[in-house]
């Protein structure tokens, strides 16, 4: 699926889409990390797990994206593959990627996912997640 964005004057709006809410969250993560590099060149060498509890699906999206950013920043890794499942209010995720190296394309760092223009909704048969990320 093609990465999709929407305009914001200072920052960048991201759009994730999927047949399920989980696919939609994975897609949103892919779209966000694509701001930082060309993810087709990033290999899934290291994998990290995430678990969190959040009953509100919109806040869950922001929490998921910010957990990914925190781990990638702390480990100096760029993630390119994402999986997440929901079990009631609990979310269990996984992200894979590799350490930044000199040969990788450098885009723009994402500082955090915000609550601005945040929405997670089902439109016809597809889930769509949106928010502004601060760059």
């Amino acid at each position: 699926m093609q990465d999709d964005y929407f305009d914001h004057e200072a920052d960048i709006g991201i759009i994730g889409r999927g047949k399920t809410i989980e696919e939609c969250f994975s897609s949103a993560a892919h779209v966000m990390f694509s701001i930082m590099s060309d993810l087709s060149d990033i290999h899934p060498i290291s994998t990290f797990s995430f678990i969190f509890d959040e009953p509100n699906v919109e806040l869950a999206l922001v929490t998921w994206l910010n957990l990914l950013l925190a781990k990638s920043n702390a480990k100096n890794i760029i993630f390119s593959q994402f999986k997440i499942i929901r079990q009631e209010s609990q979310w269990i995720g996984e992200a894979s990627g590799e350490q930044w190296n000199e040969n990788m394309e450098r885009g723009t760092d994402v500082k955090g996912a915000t609550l601005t223009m945040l929405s997670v909704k089902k439109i016809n048969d597809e889930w769509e997640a949106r928010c502004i990320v601060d760059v």
Partner: protein
Amino acid sequence: MDLSRVKQIDEFKWTVADKELPILFYGDKDLISGLDEKVREQIINVANLPGLVGNAMTMPDAHWGYGFPIGGVAAFDANAGGVISAGGVGFDISCGIRALRTNLFLSDVLPFIEKLADSLFRAVPSGVGAGGNLLLTKPELEEVMQEGARWAVKKGYGVLEDLDYIEEKGCIDGARPSYVSDHAKERQLGEMGTLGSGNHYLEVQVVKQILDRSAANAFGLTENQIIISIHCGSRGLGHQVGSDYLITLAKAAEHLGIQLPERELACAPILSKEGQQYIGAMHSAINCALANRQIITALTRSAVSKIFPKSHLETLFDVSHNTCKREKHPIDGKIREVYVHRKGATRAFGPGHIELPKNYISVGQPVCIGGSMGTGSYILAGNSSESNQAFSSACHGAGRKMSRRQALKIWNGKELIKELANQGIYIRTKSMRGVAEEAPDSYKDVHKVVEVTERSGLARRVAFLKPIACIKG
């Protein structure tokens, strides 16, 4: 913005037309008409927050942000139920500009400008995924959060004199590292002394024009002198504090019964448990930012001395533009203590202010305004509170006029670098995307923004600085 939705008060002040709200937009007709409608919506939301003192304001460089508009200023009284908002500070807590005054002149530097750009690019890690060469232990990071730039100087990054020319003398009180999450701390261990990306930069500039001779003398500025400016913030720790407390304060607002028109305004009463925790964490991030710019200052000095062994770089001033600070201001004839949010706005203390270094006290605080890598930057001086009625605040830059996505459609990083080199501006970067997003024409006209800043009484122009080399994050 549709001008029928605002009402002009005087040449440079406007308010909303259809409601009686304590709101001021600073700008001339062109700047106000160029504002996105969202700026109006966002500042109306700010004006409706509990405990607001005076007006909620936008500076002349305002643009659409999240929660508060960028260029937003608002003060709140803790004892009147006033709030502190994570959306009023932003993710890059204490992002700011450190300007370094050098003993070098254009004629010294021009023959070696590309060599100097290379040396700075090697010395200061920049861009996404670029870790620093300094790896902190957790106890060291605790010290950084408590001591700010003083920690960096203690460790040999810079000299004691630098501290006199940093807001709060390099260390803000009230940092509470225990309120900073482990995620935030983990993010910072390898990030000290790094520039980051986006609109951050390390720029070699030449003083092209002096506009206020007496203030320029006080600031030690003269024509053709080389200035080096560092624009960056608190890096991963600040970003994580922003992320963590956005959720915490949004939930706090809900259970404390504060109606938020936009969740990003996430706030809590200043005196609440959550409010105090955020202030403790945010001040820890401010200290991180001050230490970060101090370390970059030392790296810059070392890089410059490799090309110019007799160079001497002094801190002209270091000022943040994403903060909330407790300050005293004259309000309705009385001095009141308020919490001033400045999101993309610079503190600009006027002459005589007790916190100014003694050699600046007669002219006011230096206010460092970053333009774009193609146009230039300004040093302004703060005005007295009779002239500046915005809680001693001024603009922080030119302000974007176009989204990053639109900029990417128009410009190509490589071509832009070539074009700027033809104009005598040498760019060093790891991110062609970043350069395109930061294209000079994606920003408002910095000359216009600072002219309006001056004519509206917020601050006065002292010097115009033209870039000759820029390390883009």
